[in-house]
């Protein structure tokens, strides 16, 4: 491990890569603040830049920096304006915005920065310990297990979707898989479902889909229902926190770093769930008099989601780097970028190209440090970007989604697809159909079919399902994950009815 660390350090410390981290964090912070542009859209916009650099370590370092910056920037707009730029920072606005209203905006931003730093750093430490261990297990995996693992990943996404949402999340994941089969297929390179349209021969562009699923609906919602983007006053002062406050949030940060990291590792449960769960857990275990403060400007209530979402961001790199399976929409986009750079993440990554793996880990430490020291003094200036009037902001957001799709494919049909899918995604968003599973299914679809086909060919049929115990076990877990929520809901309902009858 020490050897790996040194390799990573030498790669990450080169002037070019240091500049990449700094640039990534700054760009991420700036754009992450704008409502409507979450980490996914920003990374999608940055992919052409990253790919044209040609060096996979530098590209991944840049994109990881953008990811951190975006989460940090998202919390800035949550706190100052109650307008979260990113779903993962919605929970930060519960207590951050009341604090800002009470004139403690500076303090809230400092707490957010420190909590993010601690969450990210502890997360990176855990990643360093767990990723090599997990990847040595993963080396034993066979294509059948990979297939089963992806099924588990997609079912977990559905299972964590929440009550009444499991079927919706599942149909979205299946829809993503269906869309992935459009174009030239895994077997014999036959074009499938192209309806004779040449532009569909290579399938849908994943950047187009990412933009259509996330950036466009957000922007349309902003048009439909304008949010007041102006803060109370532009002045942000008093960035200090006191010793007793630091002591109060220290255990929260410790707990939430661990919890957030492990939630981030689970496929489907990204920064968003980690931050909400972190907030809920801390509220429940807080003493009675502190519980009442939650939602009215509690520093613990701000530190918990901020720590958890950054730790979860780091955690979501574990399945990406060790198994090659993205657990969240953002890591799915990163995976697409890596494949474009001719790097296949997976258990072999650590053996074949250790410098990439370790450089990313080192750059996480550097990125967190950069965010802390660069952004803290710059916060009052960065927040000025929120003063950009909506009439200018929205055309630019729309323009950037169009450009992201166009630069990736250099194809004007892609833009029409973007608008079409964007309208569909907006309709789905009206009814709370989750959109991330669709993108994850889309990205996993190709790999899933490849692995499925390979194991079918090796076993000359579907016998691999019962002949390989590990595959069978994983598929059983997947089935349980899908069925458990409805079983629990039914039992809870039965119990609730029982109580009502006894009344």
């Amino acid at each position, binding site marked *: 491990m020490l050897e790996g660390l040194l390799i990573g350090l030498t790669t990450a410390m080169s002037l070019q890569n240091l500049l990449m981290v700094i640039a990534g964090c700054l760009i991420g912070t700036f754009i992450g603040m704008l409502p409507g542009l979450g980490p996914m859209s920003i990374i999608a916009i940055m992919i*052409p830049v990253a790919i*044209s650099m040609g060096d996979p370590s530098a590209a991944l370092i840049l994109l990881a920096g953008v990811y951190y910056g975006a989460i940090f920037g998202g919390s800035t707009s949550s706190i100052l304006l109650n307008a979260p730029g990113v779903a993962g920072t919605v929970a930060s606005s519960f207590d951050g915005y009341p604090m800002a209203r009470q004139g403690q905006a500076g303090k809230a931003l400092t707490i957010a920065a420190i909590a993010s730093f601690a969450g990210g750093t502890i997360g990176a430490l855990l990643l360093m310990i767990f990723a090599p261990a997990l990847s040595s297990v993963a080396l034993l995996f066979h294509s059948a297990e990979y297939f089963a693992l992806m099924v588990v990943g997609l079912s977990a996404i559905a299972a964590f979707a929440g*009550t*009444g*949402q499991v*079927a*919706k999340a*599942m*149909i979205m994941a*299946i*829809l993503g898989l*269906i869309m992935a*089969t459009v174009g030239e*297929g*895994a*077997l*014999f390179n*036959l074009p*499938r*479902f192209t309806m004779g349209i040449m532009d569909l021969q290579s399938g849908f562009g994943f950047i187009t889909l990412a933009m259509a699923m996330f950036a466009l609906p957000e922007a*349309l919602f902003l*048009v*439909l*229902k*304008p949010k007041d983007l102006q803060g109370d006053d532009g002045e942000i002062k008093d960035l200090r926190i006191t010793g007793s406050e630091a002591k109060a949030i220290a255990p929260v940060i410790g707990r939430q770093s661990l919890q957030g990291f492990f939630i981030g590792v689970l496929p489907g449960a990204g920064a968003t769930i980690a931050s909400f769960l972190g907030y809920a857990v801390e509220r429940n275990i807080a003493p009675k008099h502190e519980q009442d403060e939650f939602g009215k400007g509690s520093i613990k209530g701000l530190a918990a989601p901020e720590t958890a979402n950054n730790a979860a961001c780091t955690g979501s790199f574990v399945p990406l780097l060790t198994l090659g399976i993205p657990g969240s929409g953002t890591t799915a986009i990163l995976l697409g970028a890596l494949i474009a750079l001719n790097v296949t993440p997976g258990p072999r990554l650590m053996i074949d190209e250790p410098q990439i793996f370790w450089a990313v880990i080192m750059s996480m430490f550097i990125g967190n440090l950069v965010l802390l020291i660069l952004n803290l003094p710059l916060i009052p200036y960065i927040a000025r970007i929120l003063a950009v009037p*909506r*009439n*200018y902001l*929205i*055309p*630019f957001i*729309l*323009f950037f989604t*169009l*450009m992201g799709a*166009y*630069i990736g494919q*250099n194809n*004007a049909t892609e*833009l*029409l697809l*973007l*608008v079409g899918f*964007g*309208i569909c995604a907006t*309709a*789905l968003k*009206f*009814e*709370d*159909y989750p959109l991330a599973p669709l993108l994850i299914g889309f990205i996993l679809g190709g790999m899933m079919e490849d692995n*499925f086909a390979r194991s*079918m*060919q090796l*076993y*000359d*049929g579907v016998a691999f399902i019962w002949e390989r115990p590990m595959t069978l076990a994983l598929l059983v877990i997947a089935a349980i994950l899908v069925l458990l929520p*409805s079983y629990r*809901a039914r039992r809870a*309902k039965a119990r609730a009815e029982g109580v009502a009858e006894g009344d």
Partner: protein
Amino acid sequence: MALDRWIALVLLGVCLTYGYAAWFTMDASLAPFMKRNPIWPSTFPKVLSVLGILTTLVILLGFEKGEAKEADIDYHRLTEYHLGQALLLLGLMVVYALCLRPMGFLISTSAFLILGSYILGERKWHIMLPVALIAAFSIWFLVQEVLGIYMRPLPGFIGG
């Protein structure tokens, strides 16, 4: 019927069409040597279509009860929001997609940015014009010169 069921109905239609294409139209054109393979290009889509149909039926028949949530936007009162602006902007995006190649990047982008803010109600031409022109030019410069991705700057007939 609530909108989420209508969506499920549409998705069911999508899955049925997809399933029809997978089950009945794909295998006929398969070369004989491919038919000896245990897995065909249509195998995975067949499985997906069945799963998709089952899942949409679960939603459509309401097997899974969810609690009603307060949505960010209530689609029943869609006309009370700025629906016209949203539709106009979507139309503008389509026009932009169609004009990008023939009109060149600089003209279409500046026009898109100006019209976009015009639709949203901005009337300060002395700010709109320079902002759009500077943005269009600097983005073109970044993409073309720094990233090296070719984008036709001017309309074809003046040699762009």
